């Protein structure tokens, strides 16, 4: 949040219609400023103007009215501006960037009171394995779709997580091309289950896969996982309740 006092105001002049990665350039720059945590930014559209190339752009000429001038302004501390200026110059391309010293008399207030923050979540980094199971959407296990039965079996065995993907095209153990035909009920697709847990737990689960999958492929590879969790934090606190402040035993 900005403090009253010295700050820098940056103004970027662009021509409307300029694009960056297929989206309007101003929106690309605005996103960049937003995700870099700039205090605030405003985009204004001019009604007429000309730039370095000395072409007059005006609202009255229909054919060039999509090249009207665009101005992006934002105010932040000098350090913040210097930190992002390099990338900003690159983004602005042929546009002009102007900086001026300014003084903040009164910083903007948040329109809504800040919600009380949740306790910081826990970040766990670990080695794990990813197990990908390839089956067909029409495969069944005890009259239930095989992939659904696998998800239930994984959950029953406390495997950390699974995501089921449906392919739009593919072939596998059946040696026949599955095609997802639009407008026709697509019940013949390739299915991939992506399961992540420790190597030991996945290997321990494999005998269950052996029983359930008649035709299919299972592929293991090593991954480094980064897991964010609230629930694990509670568990950790329960495990080590007296690290710094011993808690008295309660009846």
């Amino acid at each position, binding site marked *: 949040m900005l403090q009253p006092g010295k700050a820098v105001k940056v103004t970027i002049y662009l021509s409307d219609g300029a694009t960056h*990665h*297929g*989206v309007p350039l101003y929106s690309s720059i605005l996103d960049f400023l937003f995700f870099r945590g700039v205090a605030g930014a405003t985009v204004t559209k001019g009604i007429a103007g000309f730039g370095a190339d000395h072409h007059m752009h005006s609202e009255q000429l229909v054919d060039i009215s999509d090249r009207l001038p665009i101005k992006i302004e934002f105010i932040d501390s000098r350090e913040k501006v210097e930190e992002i200026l390099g990338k900003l110059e690159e983004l602005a391309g042929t546009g002009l960037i102007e900086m001026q010293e300014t003084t903040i008399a009164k910083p903007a207030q948040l329109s809504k009171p800040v919600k009380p923050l949740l306790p910081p979540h826990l970040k766990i980094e670990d080695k794990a394995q990813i197990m*990908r199971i*390839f089956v067909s959407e029409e495969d069944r296990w005890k009259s239930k779709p095989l992939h659904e039965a696998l998800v239930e079996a994984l959950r029953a065995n406390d495997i950390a997580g699974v995501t089921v*993907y*449906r*392919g*739009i*095209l*593919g*072939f*596998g*153990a059946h040696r026949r*091309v599955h095609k997802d035909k*639009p407008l026709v009920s697509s019940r013949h697709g*390739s299915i*991939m289950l992506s399961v992540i847990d420790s190597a030991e737990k996945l290997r321990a689960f*494999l005998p269950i*896969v*052996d029983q359930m*999958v*008649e*035709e*299919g*492929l*299972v*592929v*293991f*590879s090593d991954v480094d996982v980064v897991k964010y969790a609230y629930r694990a934090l509670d568990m950790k606190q329960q495990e080590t309740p007296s690290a710094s402040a011993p808690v008295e035993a309660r009846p």
Partner: protein
Amino acid sequence: MKEEFTGRMLRVHFGEDDRWQGKPLHEAILAKCEELGILEAVVFRGIEGYGSASRIRHVSHWPYSKDAPIQMTIIGAEEQIAKLTPYLDELVEEGLVAASTVEVVRYSRAPERS
């Protein structure tokens, strides 16, 4: 029947509107995989993304809009994948291929005897 061996997995990323000789690129790659007897090849369509073509690709509300990100997962024995890579070099003009070594477990029905 169950077999276990070490294999290779490729993940090829490109766009749904990419073509090879007028045919969707993923169909061309899939046909090549089949020809080489590769074990498993599946095409997935993402709902949003950006990549080497540096464009945000996304599927609009129109259900069959093109230009969605495509990811192909291809699994095979080391030699099969080695044979496929030169074709990918030729077919994929703009895209990304990620390769990794994997442990494969293959389940197949025993050939029927009459």
